[in-house]
């Protein structure tokens, strides 16, 4: 049984299980990774709390927030882990890659170095995570057009090469934040349904309805700011 089969069989936890609000159909563990100061924490705060502050506080180690979303009448609980980008925390952060079903790999469009590090972060995902983990590449801070050093085309090209979906985002102006998470959830659901189709044995205890019954939303990856 692969990851998605396992997850489908174990995460349908409505009314059972232990700890927290158990009234959900699925729980997805997501991670936000990328170089220090690209805006990972701001991105999560915007999504989870609809808040933004320009004050920079470097994340120590790891932190997380929980948010519940709905898809085709199913409650999906997102456990979103915010990781520190600094090298000194690498042992701690990579320990949390295990079991993650989706990653938002973030760079800063005004910081070439953070873009250059995307390949390394991708390797980290391959090394420490499951083979089937889904990844969205996010070029953050697209509100800072005047300071841009990474073009949209270069971002998109790299995403294609790595086999990732791509968005340019702004936590500050709330551009493509929700869309990035929604797309990642869609990708995980698609993968999960594929796994269930290819291995009917894993449907024992699995949800009765596919999460991909309706057409996926039209993707718009460019920055609208």
């Amino acid at each position: 049984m692969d990851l998605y089969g396992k997850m489908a069989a174990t995460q349908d936890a409505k009314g059972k299980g232990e700890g927290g609000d158990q009234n959900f159909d699925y729980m997805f563990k997501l991670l936000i990774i990328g170089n220090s100061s690209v805006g990972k924490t701001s991105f999560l705060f915007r999504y989870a709390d609809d808040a933004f502050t320009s004050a920079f506080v470097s994340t120590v180690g790891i932190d997380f927030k929980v948010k519940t979303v709905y898809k085709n009448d199913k409650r999906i609980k997102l456990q979103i882990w915010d990781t520190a980008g600094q090298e000194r925390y690498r042992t701690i952060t990579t320990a949390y890659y295990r079991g993650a079903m989706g990653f938002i790999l973030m760079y800063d469009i005004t910081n070439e170095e953070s873009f250059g590090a995307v390949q390394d972060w991708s390797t980290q995902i391959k090394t420490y995570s499951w083979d089937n983990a889904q990844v969205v590449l996010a070029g953050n801070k697209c509100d800072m057009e005047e300071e841009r050093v990474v073009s949209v085309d270069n971002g998109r090209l790299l995403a294609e090469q790595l086999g990732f979906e791509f968005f340019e985002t702004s936590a500050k102006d709330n551009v493509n934040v929700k869309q990035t998470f929604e797309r990642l959830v869609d990708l995980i659901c698609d993968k999960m349904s594929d796994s269930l189709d290819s291995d009917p044995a894993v449907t024992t205890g699995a949800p009765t309805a596919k999460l991909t019954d309706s057409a996926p939303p039209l993707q718009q990856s460019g920055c609208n700011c």
Partner: protein
Amino acid sequence: MGQTISKPTNPQNSNLSLKRSSPSSNEQNMAPRPSIFSTLRRPLITKTNDFIPLFNDCISAAASRTQEYLLFKDPEDKFQASSEVLTQVFLMTYISQSVSLNMTDRFNCTAMTPEQRILLGPDWVWAMLEKPTKNPRIQIAVQVLHLPGREAAEENNISQEACTESIQIAQKESSNKTTYERMVDFCTSIGKDCYALFLFLGKKNDKGNIYGVLSNNFEAAIGKCNKIDRAFIENFFKGSRYLHTPPGMMQAIVTKKEGDSLTLMVKFS
């Protein structure tokens, strides 16, 4: 003139003043130049440790304020500050003081979220920052320990915090280790430049003072099959005759050779 000599040079400020004033060559020539002898009196090393006296000021303020609550005795014996409040009083006083002394660009303090406290162990992390990246060069992860009586009194009172979903998830994630072990794991995973400081707000035999055990080598105990618990940490005081002051502790940290181990006991109040 003496003032000019003792003023620390700030290259950024120098650049700013040059850009703003744009003095003519005449004005530049007329500007007083420091005496050649002044260079002899200038310190050779830039003041990388000049935050230490400021750190001491912040600690003094935080420790004094906390002691007021630590020593409070309700005549009716019904009321006392909770452990959580004592920790907050210490940290809030420290932060207010460090902001007012403008030292946070060299030595900052990051309070952990409730989830981070459960996952990683520390209540807050002090960091000496590298210039110009502002990345931490040395870190001190601080976990506060309270008098056993105070902690036991609160065990039955389930705080609102304990009920939140994310707290329960964090507890589930870290359920196989004690808070002391998680703290040591956190520091060990970073390296020898990350110290664990267990800060005792009152000790059994001295309930009104604040002490600490600091080390970047607690993990050695794991190798010796010792369990890292409160008794293990308190045991350090028994074997030690000397207690460092907070600036002494900081001086020992910044002058220590890279990669070396350091363990010391500190009195903060």
